[in-house]
């Protein structure tokens, strides 16, 4: 881990609840150990950055950079939570409400 090199993009659009998944045409070999551990973790499907950090046993702020680097290299894709605006989107609110009520 100590030898891992992180290529950190200037703008990091990754946060705790960003969903991370492997790009369909990604080259998945030749990664540093943390990168390949992360990819192994994501083989079963998307996870939030926070879950990745917990599963890898690495601090969130490290995994955030790791993810950002792999996104920059085209290996990973992300889905971010809606942009923080003053008020949430009504469609998302309805989606959450009906989902919670149906549980």
């Amino acid at each position: 881990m100590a030898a891992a090199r992180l290529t950190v993009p200037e703008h990091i659009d990754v946060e705790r609840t960003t969903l991370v998944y492997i790009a369909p045409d990604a080259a998945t070999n030749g990664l540093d150990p943390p990168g390949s551990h992360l990819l192994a973790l994501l083989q079963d499907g998307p996870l939030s950055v926070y879950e990745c950090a917990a599963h890898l046993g690495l601090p969130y702020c490290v995994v955030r950079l790791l993810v950002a680097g792999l996104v920059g290299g085209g290996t990973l894709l992300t889905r971010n939570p809606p942009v923080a605006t003053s008020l949430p989107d009504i469609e998302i609110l309805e989606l959450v409400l009906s989902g919670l009520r149906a549980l």
Partner: protein
Amino acid sequence: MASALSDSRVSAEHIPVKLVIAGPFGVGKTTIVSALSEIKPLNTEEVLTQAGTLVDDLTGVSDKTTTTTAIDFGRLTLPGAVLYLFGAPGQTRFQVLWDELVRGALGVLVLADTRRIDESFAVLDLVENAGIRYAVAVNHFPDSPDYPLESVRKALDLDPRTPLMVCDARDPASARASLIALVEHVRELVLS
């Protein structure tokens, strides 16, 4: 602490939605996240620094004063959306972490304990300062005094429109009802 990896996964089509559950230590944040989460809740440590330079502190420099705080993290997948629940201590010394957690969050559920009502003030201050929408749930403990909700509302100086309810953090249905009240409140604010 990592939990088993055999949990279900969401799809990339799910919209990530963040909800924060805040309250003083021992108020039941871990309990309510456990009651709501479909995965074994992850208890993680967040590194806190005075300056908020979270990255710098992990490069092996040890001359800075750092402290950590436990965060409870849970997940609840709904059709089309995935709720991420963060149980976080609401204390002003965690301001930087707090700002990050509430950024983009749908809302905050403030957990209160009527046996220690004064400990909720710091949390409410943080929530108010962040300008984030919130609801208050009183976690009822067996030895909680039975104050009428109106006197709790008065003691906490809550706006008449802020939802205030009693919940049992151990009970998934009760925990969900608190979340529903919060999301309904946010919807009313959006529609008004």
